[in-house]
């Protein structure tokens, strides 16, 4: 019980930190400030072929991804490489991932790259605005 409470608190703190980073502090990390409104359209156009917020499709469901450990969406079959990666999807890690997923995690099944730093920031800002409903 105490462990579950601790995990929930840790997750909440991670998410809060991630969402803070996706705003003003994001620029402080050397990354552009993301615009979640632009991110909606970019998400549909760039990610929507394989991903949805709430359905596992070619890729896993994305709701709540910011702050989550990689490879943890229920009922989605990940590559061994990503499952074993121990990555936490902070905005900075999502930026690295979208820039070149196969460089970050060799052996991943995702190869799609977003070359524009601003577009990556916008997509990440959109994802940060869609936390887990639990």
């Amino acid at each position: 019980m105490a462990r579950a409470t601790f995990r929930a608190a840790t997750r909440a703190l991670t998410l809060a930190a991630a969402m803070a980073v996706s705003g003003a502090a994001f620029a402080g990390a050397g990354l552009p400030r993301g615009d979640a409104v632009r991110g909606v359209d970019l998400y549909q156009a760039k990610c929507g072929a394989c991903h949805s917020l709430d359905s596992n499709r070619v890729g896993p469901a994305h709701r709540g991804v910011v702050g989550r450990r990689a490879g943890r969406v229920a009922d989605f079959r990940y590559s061994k490489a990503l499952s074993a990666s121990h990555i936490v999807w902070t905005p900075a890690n999502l930026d690295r991932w979208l820039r070149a997923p196969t460089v970050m995690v060799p052996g991943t099944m995702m190869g799609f790259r977003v070359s524009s730093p601003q577009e990556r920031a916008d997509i990440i800002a959109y994802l940060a605005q869609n936390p887990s409903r639990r």
Partner: protein
Amino acid sequence: MIDIPSSSRRSVLTGGVTTLSAAGLVALLGGSVPAAARKADLPAQDAQLLNAALALEHEGIAAYQIAAQSGLLSPDVLKVGITFQSHHKTHRDDLAAAIGRLGGVAATSKPIADYAASLGAGALKTQTDVLKLALRLERGAANAYLGLIPSLQATEFHVLSARLAGDEAFHAAVLGNVLNEPIPQQAPIFG
């Protein structure tokens, strides 16, 4: 940035490093992957990426099947949909053949009910709903294939991915026209 558990960190420091591929280790440490290591992992990595593309084609084929069986399409639109589905079947076969040449095992399709659920087919009430879904998927697929190219190692798969992107962009253009969508004012339209 990457949270390595203490036990894993210890194994890296005490010789467990040999269990990691060279490419994996270098990526973990944030550097660039040496050419020799990259070459060693090349076929398996490309096969992984092409299998994800194959899964995308399986979904596209299923989406057109769901649309065809919905009873919502006019005969003319149905005919176009069947033609587009046949293009996706060719894509599927080309990708499966490429994966096989790399020594990989091609991903199989899921039951069509699974695709219907994940695509929200139950919410499709009109032909326009179906066309909008198809347009969203085709537009996304064109972008997906273009965004995949830099991650593929072999030139022949760069070409394959670009050709498939072209087909998806063509489908998107036709669907956009049927839906009376305005012509995009800014180029490049995809990628």
